């Protein structure tokens, strides 16, 4: 195994964590907005 692979994997993991974190934050904010406008009934818990 080449030595650089660990580094590439780490960078990838960080990027992916960033993306998923962003998606989670977005999810929460949308849920709040939906609750405020009273249209969360149709959506998941």
């Amino acid at each position, binding site marked *: 195994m080449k030595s650089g692979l*660990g580094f590439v994997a780490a960078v*990838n*993991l960080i990027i992916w964590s960033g993306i998923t974190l962003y998606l989670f934050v977005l*999810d929460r904010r*949308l849920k709040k907005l*939906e609750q405020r*406008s009273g249209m969360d009934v149709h959506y998941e818990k």
Partner: protein
Amino acid sequence: MIYKILLTIWMNLIIAAVFLYVEPAAGFPGEVSRILFFHVPTAWVATLAFFLSMIASCVYLITRKVNADFLAQSSAELGFLFCFLATVTGSIFAKATWGSFWNWDPRQTSIVMLLMIYGAYFVLRSAVPDHEKRRVFAGVYSILAFCTVPFLVFVVPRITNSLHPEDTLNPASPGMDMKTLIFFLGSLCAYTGLFVWMLRLKVRMLRLLDREQRAFRSNF
């Protein structure tokens, strides 16, 4: 909620495994083949998204339910994003294996064509001020564009020969060992899950926006 956390863990697991656990596929120089675990799923998701967008457009034109158009629009936007990612990853892969970023391989030609069609689709959406008309036009354009795709599939390969590896990463081919296959399919699933997640977020956003406009209207 739980499936999103599972998806995140699964995604990270796949990345770690792809770089650190799986051996590079035979027939490619060095570690190059590892990008295929990302390139193929993005291309797959792009295809799925565009297809979904076309179906949703048809549904909108028949039923005139706004939700169908939200789905069509979100799906087209995500498809564009994934298509772009597939182009970039494919281009990097091409540089490493064939020596140039771009050489108008049939696959590259068709992907550019798709990017152009959906680029035009977004331009059309932004150019029609009336909401309902915009939805109808976008739906009509996407169906019309979809009708030209078979020609592209039929015509383009006649022009140049493909260098695109067809069999090396075909799950059915015997060249792929068990370990690679598992993580390859795992990656496909993870990407599809991610697409579904993003799609729902986008649809919810559009709904909220629409809702807001309606609420504003009923204040009168």
